[in-house]
């Protein structure tokens, strides 16, 4: 049952079960991610990938089983508490804030790093506020530059293309200095050059900044390129796990994706 519980696991889930009414969305899902690992989570539509993300980040409560991060049980935490610990996620239906500009959207990600900015600093415009706010804006502009949105940083997020909105969301995730990043279909809607750019960005994040990633996507080239290891979900269960090349030829994975003839 708990075969995934190994020492040194950075993030892992144990026997997670989620029921929506009579439907079992996740069945006994155990998955672990090591430090600086890029893990792909693939599977057909409705396999439970997003549900798994929702459980891991506190948006959905598991009926049984638990999630652990840095050796602590994080199962009962609320979404913002999970985020505070450094588990940052993006959303499949683009989690942008339409009424805010690109810069302000990205600054939302910086919120995690501003706990020492108190209400009286803000209200009275104390020096503390100015220093922190300035640092935030400078960093946000750097991140915007790095995801390639410099020219639109003052535009409202709702006026951007789907691909650009994806980049805004990735920017929001990047600026918050995540320890574990969960990206829900980051490649959807991106052009091939944007895709390449993002994949380089994510690899650098894992290898030089020590961030762990779980990437769920349908774009196989992208997933195979970025991820070292893959987990395959099908009907709410882990079907197979292993390095990309192994998964590519796994008979049950092929069966799940293509169907038996």
């Amino acid at each position, binding site marked *: 049952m708990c075969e995934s519980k190994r020492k040194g696991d950075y993030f892992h889930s144990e026997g997670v079960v989620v029921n929506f009414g009579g439907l079992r969305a996740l069945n006994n899902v155990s998955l672990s991610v090591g430090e600086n690992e890029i893990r792909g989570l693939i599977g057909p539509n409705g396999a439970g990938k997003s549900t798994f993300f929702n459980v891991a*980040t506190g*948006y959905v409560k598991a009926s049984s089983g638990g999630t652990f991060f840095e050796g602590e049980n994080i199962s009962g935490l*609320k*979404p*913002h508490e999970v*985020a*505070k610990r450094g588990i*940052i*996620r*993006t*959303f499949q239906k683009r*989690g*942008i*804030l*339409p*009424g*805010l*500009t690109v*810069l*302000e959207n990205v*600054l*939302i*990600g*910086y*919120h*995690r790093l*501003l706990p020492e*900015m108190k*209400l009286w600093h*803000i*209200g*009275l*415009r104390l020096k503390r*506020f*100015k220093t922190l*706010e*300035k640092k*935030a*804006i400078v960093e946000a502009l750097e991140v915007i530059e790095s995801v390639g949105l410099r020219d639109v940083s003052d535009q409202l997020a709702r006026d951007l293309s789907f691909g650009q909105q994806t980049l805004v969301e990735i920017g*929001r995730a990047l600026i*918050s200095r995540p320890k574990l990043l969960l990206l829900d279909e980051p490649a959807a809607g991106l052009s091939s050059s944007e895709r390449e750019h993002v994949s380089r960005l994510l690899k650098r994040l894992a290898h030089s900044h020590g961030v762990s990633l779980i990437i769920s996507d349908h774009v196989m080239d992208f997933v195979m390129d970025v991820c070292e290891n893959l987990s395959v979900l099908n009907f709410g269960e882990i079907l197979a796990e292993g390095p990309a090349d192994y998964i590519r030829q796994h008979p049950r994975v092929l069966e799940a994706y293509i169907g038996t003839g």
Partner: protein
Amino acid sequence: MNWKMRNWIIWVGFVAGLVCIPLATNNYYQYIINLIFVNFLVALGLAIMLGYCGQFVFASAGFMGIGAYTAGLCMVHLGMPYWLALICAVLVGLVFAVFLGFIGLRLSRYYLAISTMAFTLAMRFFYVNAKVVTFGPSGFNIPFPKLFGFGFNTDRRVYYIVLFVVLILAILSRNILRSKVGRAFVAIRDNEDVAAAGSISVRQYKMLALAMGGVLGSAAGALYCVVLGRITPEEFGMGAILLHFLIVVIGGLGTFLGLIISSILITILPEVLRAFAELQEVLYGGIIILIILFGPEGIYGLVQKYSPVKWREKMYGDV
């Protein structure tokens, strides 16, 4: 820094202009101007809750009534000086806002709207019936505020109290909105899940928005009672909610400049149309419908659409 200098000059000029207003008015005009300031303040509170944070809180008139009655009754029953009564009013308003938050924010948005409206009406009911304390439906007279022996006994003198309080609270609110707090409010309005993914505690910030609404509303009420000189429960019912709602909607949900313009328009309108006083609420309703149909983003939206200068409020500080 050039823009810093320029901003300072604009600010000083603006405040100096406001200070000089009584030189050019008679008592009637001054009274209207005082009302504009009060309406702006209470609408700002509503705009924070409704426009910025997206919470359907219809308690602006309730908070205003609490402020007015607390300040007035503290002066009448306890003989408090006005400044102390004002502080008491704000504190009581804050307590009620937090109380309302504990109950209301657990509910979904429609129930939040209904429960806050019920709160406003219940408070009015209380003013009417708790005659021993509140003097019942006919209301009571508010004594003139005094400060260091100086009596604020004309509309022009009262204006300076109003100006002082409104300026301070408006600047504080503006500072707070143009920071991580304002961003968090708008994030909650636009998408609570995304806000939470940015480690924003949705409940805590909703509570903060409500607290700000409570403070601004009750402060506005405490000013209102000295502007009017006499308050009755009728001032704080559905009509008042409608008025505040109208100011916020016409201003364009959640913008400062739009709010100032619409406070002026909506306060002056009934004075201009005094001959048709009975039709006031019909008129208000009509305006709301027109705005929803033709300009859902209010004055702010119209300016965005037709003005060559694009002005949008930044949600981060000038640093």
